[in-house]
């Protein structure tokens, strides 16, 4: 009968291609990493499921009028989702440790070297003909080294939407892999004695400082690097709501319902870029390799800057906390704490590492502004 033939022609079995099959397996693999391995589950579960949905053959989900494509157009092409997530990050971030010791901002600056080294690497691979990245694409790939999901998605959405899927997957995967990637690099660059350094207790930070800091940061960005103002501005807005103490109901909703809703749809929308046609291309492999390199270089430069600061400063600085400068909040700070404890069981570095950790968020947002200014 004709109708049965119609079912068969419309079925996934008939229309499945190898590429889509592979990408469904990739999506399931991301779900496995998120659920069983607990790697960044909020994003890998939503991106992974979105990736599976996007590769179902014969139905518009990640294309045309499909839900995931609409979500992508409304939320990512416009930049709305990563900016709102960044507002939520601001509302969840305690800048206290950074305010107690502002010089940890240097560690957050140094760790951004991974971003720019990777940009150079991507252009280098193009120069030798292995890859074919434009400057805009290279800039978007470099941002993976910022270890900050919404920043990477925002920049990729602006500069290289065709690479967004691979960049987001790389960024979140490597953020999840921080506990595996960072310790060997840290240990290779520091001595046991350096890792055992104890740091002086952080001073108390007043509420007035907490309230003024996001405003100071915003004004500095406004004066010097306006292209970073959308990202940094939303971060500062979320943080001001958190700290000002008079809009707690807004801050509470931002930290919960709002960021959760946007995370769900951001993940699905990013997943819509995991279609076989866009993801199974040679550049994806390049992006995954370059992203890993970016992380490693960022970690190393943060640690080296920590060593330099330890020499120059009158107060001791444990160079291990430099690794937290890549951001990946709060995973990288927790890794620094663990590595410090291994070398010295009395050494609680966690709060000291939170300074460079949140400095890394600011640092990569600034680097994103630089990228958008130069390559945009």
């Amino acid at each position, binding site marked *: 009968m004709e109708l049965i033939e119609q079912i068969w022609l419309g079925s996934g079995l008939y229309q499945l291609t190898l590429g889509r099959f592979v990408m469904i397996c990739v999506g399931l693999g991301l779900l496995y990493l998120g659920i069983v391995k607990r790697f960044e589950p909020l994003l890998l579960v939503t991106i992974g499921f979105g990736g599976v949905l996007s590769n179902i053959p014969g139905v518009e989900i990640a294309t045309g009028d499909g839900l995931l494509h609409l979500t992508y157009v409304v939320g990512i092409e416009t930049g709305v989702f990563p900016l709102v997530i960044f507002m939520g990050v601001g509302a969840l971030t305690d800048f206290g440790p*950074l*305010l107690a010791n*502002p*010089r940890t*901002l*240097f560690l*957050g*600056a140094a760790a*951004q*070297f991974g*971003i*720019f*080294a990777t*940009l*150079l690497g*991507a*252009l*280098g691979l*193009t*120069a*030798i003909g292995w890859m074919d990245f434009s*400057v805009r694409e*290279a*800039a978007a790939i470099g941002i993976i080294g910022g270890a900050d999901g919404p920043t990477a998605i925002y920049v990729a959405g602006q500069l290289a939407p065709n690479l967004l899927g691979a960049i987001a997957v790389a960024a979140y995967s490597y953020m999840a892999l921080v506990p595996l990637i960072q310790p060997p690099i840290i240990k290779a660059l520091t001595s046991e004695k350096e890792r055992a350094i104890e740091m002086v207790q952080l001073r108390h930070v*007043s*509420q*007035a*400082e907490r*309230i*003024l*800091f996001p405003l*100071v*940061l915003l004004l*500095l*960005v406004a004066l*010097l*690097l306006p292209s970073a103002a959308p990202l940094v501005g939303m971060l500062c807005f979320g943080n001001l709501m958190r700290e*000002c*103490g*008079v809009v707690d109901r807004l801050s509470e909703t931002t930290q919960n319902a709002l960021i959760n809703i946007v995370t769900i749809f951001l993940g699905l929308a990013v997943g819509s870029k995991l279609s076989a046609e866009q993801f199974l291309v040679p550049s994806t492999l390049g992006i995954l390799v370059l992203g890993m390199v970016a992380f490693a270089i960022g970690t190393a430069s943060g640690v080296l800057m920590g060593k330099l600061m330890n020499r120059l400063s009158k107060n001791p600085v444990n160079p291990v906390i430099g690794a937290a400068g890549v951001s990946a909040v709060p995973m990288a700070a927790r890794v620094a704490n663990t590595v410090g404890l291994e070398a010295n069981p009395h050494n609680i570095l966690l709060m000291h590492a939170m300074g460079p950790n949140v*400095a890394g968020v*600011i*640092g990569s947002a*600034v*680097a994103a502004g*630089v*990228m958008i200014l*130069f*390559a945009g």
Partner: protein
Amino acid sequence: MEGDLIGRGVELMLVGMGTVFVFLTLLVGATTLMSGFVDRYLPAPDTTATQPGDGPTAEEVAAIAVAIARHRNPSS
């Protein structure tokens, strides 16, 4: 052509990394100045902003709540 691309990459790296460092150095300075300013002129331990200003006090809120509750359920 390849040299150009590499050259552009090196330039972007140097200027970009320089900008990040200059910006964060200025932020260190601005933050330190701000903390010094707060320490000198707004020294009260957190009271500047956490003390109820023009808003109702906790007692007022409680009184209002009681009045509303009585109104809605006068038998209580």
